[in-house]
């Protein structure tokens, strides 16, 4: 088991290297004089030269890359051409908001998907199952930038229940913060919810048809206990994999939600930077997101044996 993790770690490092390299290459796509473009419309000759030196733009590619990587590992992602704030710092400032959004949305998604999935699996083809599955399918077809505004139209503009924009940090005013986060979290939760519901329902149905569930029934175990203790765990194995794969879509949705609801998170920074052509910020965020995705998937992989004992590798045949 330990050997397996080590091997996976090796793979992880390899993938991370390639991923960071590809992110680095982005800069090379800039047409024209890279330093000038990065410096932006307000760049002076001095700043251009400074950037040029900083990024070693005159050196060969591998040198540039490794220097950039070294800087990256030290937390130095460059400076915003706009605000002159270090990119790393800007990200750190904005991260809590994004993380809170993601966390809340996943909580909502699971809180709805798990009970619904179980209930739907109990009577496949029943009315609850049909309604839930159809709704999930429909929701999957609704992108965040559509759903977000639909929610705003209904709940903010018409019903005045929740605000369309606005954000207060959690430690300052927890209740207001949560209130403001309702609509964005729901917008983000919906995509994950649909996916989790579908997977959980399918897995539950498959699990419930296994012999060991009938065996549990034949032991006289109550239904509730069978559902939670016997059936849930085997059904969540696939869920973890799917959740990990879903992280990419989650980032995308979070970024869009932040933009729609004007939350001060990493996503809105990203979008602003795109509009203002703040290239180093863009690159910085791309790297961070990609690395996060790879690491999360790695963690999900490692977590698999924790949930499914069959994957634990030690076999003692009696």
């Amino acid at each position, binding site marked *: 088991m330990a050997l397996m993790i080590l091997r996976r770690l090796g793979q992880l490092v390899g993938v991370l290297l390639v991923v960071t390299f590809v992110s680095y290459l982005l800069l090379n796509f800039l047409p024209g004089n890279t330093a000038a473009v990065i410096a932006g419309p307000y760049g002076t000759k001095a700043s251009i030269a400074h950037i040029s030196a900083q990024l070693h733009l005159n050196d060969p590619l591998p040198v540039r890359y490794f220097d950039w990587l070294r800087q990256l590992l030290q937390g130095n992602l460059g400076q915003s051409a706009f605000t002159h704030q270090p990119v790393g710092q800007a990200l750190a400032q904005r991260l809590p908001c994004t993380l809170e959004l993601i966390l809340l949305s996943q909580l909502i998604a699971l809180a709805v998907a798990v009970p619904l999935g179980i209930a739907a699996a109990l009577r496949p083809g029943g009315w609850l199952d049909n309604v839930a599955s159809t709704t999930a399918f429909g929701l999957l077809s609704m992108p965040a930038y559509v759903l977000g505004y639909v929610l705003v139209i209904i709940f903010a503009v018409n019903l005045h229940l929740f605000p369309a924009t606005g954000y207060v940090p959690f430690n300052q005013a927890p209740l207001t913060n949560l209130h403001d986060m309702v609509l964005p979290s729901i917008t983000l939760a919906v995509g994950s919810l649909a996916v989790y519901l579908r997977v959980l329902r399918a897995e539950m149905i498959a699990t419930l048809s296994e012999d060991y569930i009938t*065996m549990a029934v034949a*032991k*006289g*175990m109550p239904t509730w206990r069978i559902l939670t203790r016997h059936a849930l765990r*085997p059904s969540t194995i696939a869920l973890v994999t799917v959740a990990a794969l879903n992280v990419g879509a989650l980032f995308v949705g979070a970024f869009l939600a932040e933009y729609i609801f004007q939350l001060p998170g990493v996503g809105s920074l990203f979008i602003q930077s795109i509009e203002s052509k703040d290239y180093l910020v863009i690159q910085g965020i791309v790297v961070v997101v990609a690395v996060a995705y790879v690491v999360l998937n790695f963690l999900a992989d490692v977590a698999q044996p924790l*949930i*499914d004992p069959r994957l634990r590798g030690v076999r003692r*045949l*009696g």
Partner: protein
Amino acid sequence: MSPRRRVATDYPVDDGGPLLEVEDLTTAFRTPRGRLVAVDGVSLTLQPGTTLGVVGESGSGKTVLSRSIMRLLPQKGTETGGRVVFRGRELTPLSRKELRQIWGAEMAMIFQDPMTSLNPTMKLGRQITESLRYHLDMSRNEAREHAVALLRSVGIPTPERRLGEYPHQLSGGLRQRVTIAIALACGPRLLFADEPTTALDVTVQAQILDLLAAQQRERSMTMVLVTHDLSVVAGRTDEIAVMYAGRIVERAPTKVLFSKMKMPYTEALLASLPRADRPSHTPLKVIPGRPPDLVDPPKGCRFAPRCSYAQDKCLAEDPPLREASPGHVYACWFPVGTPAGRGALTANGRAAGAAPADPTLARSSP
């Protein structure tokens, strides 16, 4: 959790009467193609401490029968009829909640494939102690000790260690032993063993069957052994019921069945067993054809289309269950070993131009 130990007042006094009485039990499923009658009017009686073998091909309804008796059927799309009386108490009108008191504690079942009847994500110990704690209200430690003793009694080495292991860490034979331990944990009076050895290696099969027999003796338990393989029930049952197309077509004490069988189907089943005393490369006598469609069964005797004794009467009229001797019933118009039967066989033999079936095959016991 209130104690759920077996309450004596739930049952009438054990007066030496039968443990189980099944009267005209019928189970039908509503399928897209129509109403499928899997168990069609089965009746039997079980005395305590005996072993009943239920034998039949796939599709004979033997599995559905054991589940019907235990009332372990899906509620949607299932119709049941008849009565099941267990220790003097009628099971038919009981609710699921009430049945849960019986399942595991009074009646238990072991399934065919130990690979799939154990939860792969749950430790073995938990799977055993669960019912101990639920039905017998044991504490965690009590249950644990009990579980270790159980595992030991089914012949599993180092039982303490096994408690913390998962099913995939054991071989097939050991897994089936664990399944048996789980089923027997709360000391049920009646055990249904549904093809307990079919998924196991031949070498292990005998061990498991011996284990079951030993446990039964020790616990004075009653057992129903369901299988398609006559050799499994040969020396291990007191009585055998042969099922075909949802009905019992012959029932007799074991020795009587093997020596004086009346139903041609039983004869054919016996004849299809591979025999060690025959020369090698003797072709296996398989029963030609397939079991009938249970949604729309044929008129008359259901085995007739495949029976080498069949006459016109068989195709038109359904033979009733008749008694040949006390404890031996069968349903056939032209039974084996009777003048009518022999006549039917030769008549068919002449008609088909083939030699009549070898009469010596059916006579010797396996």
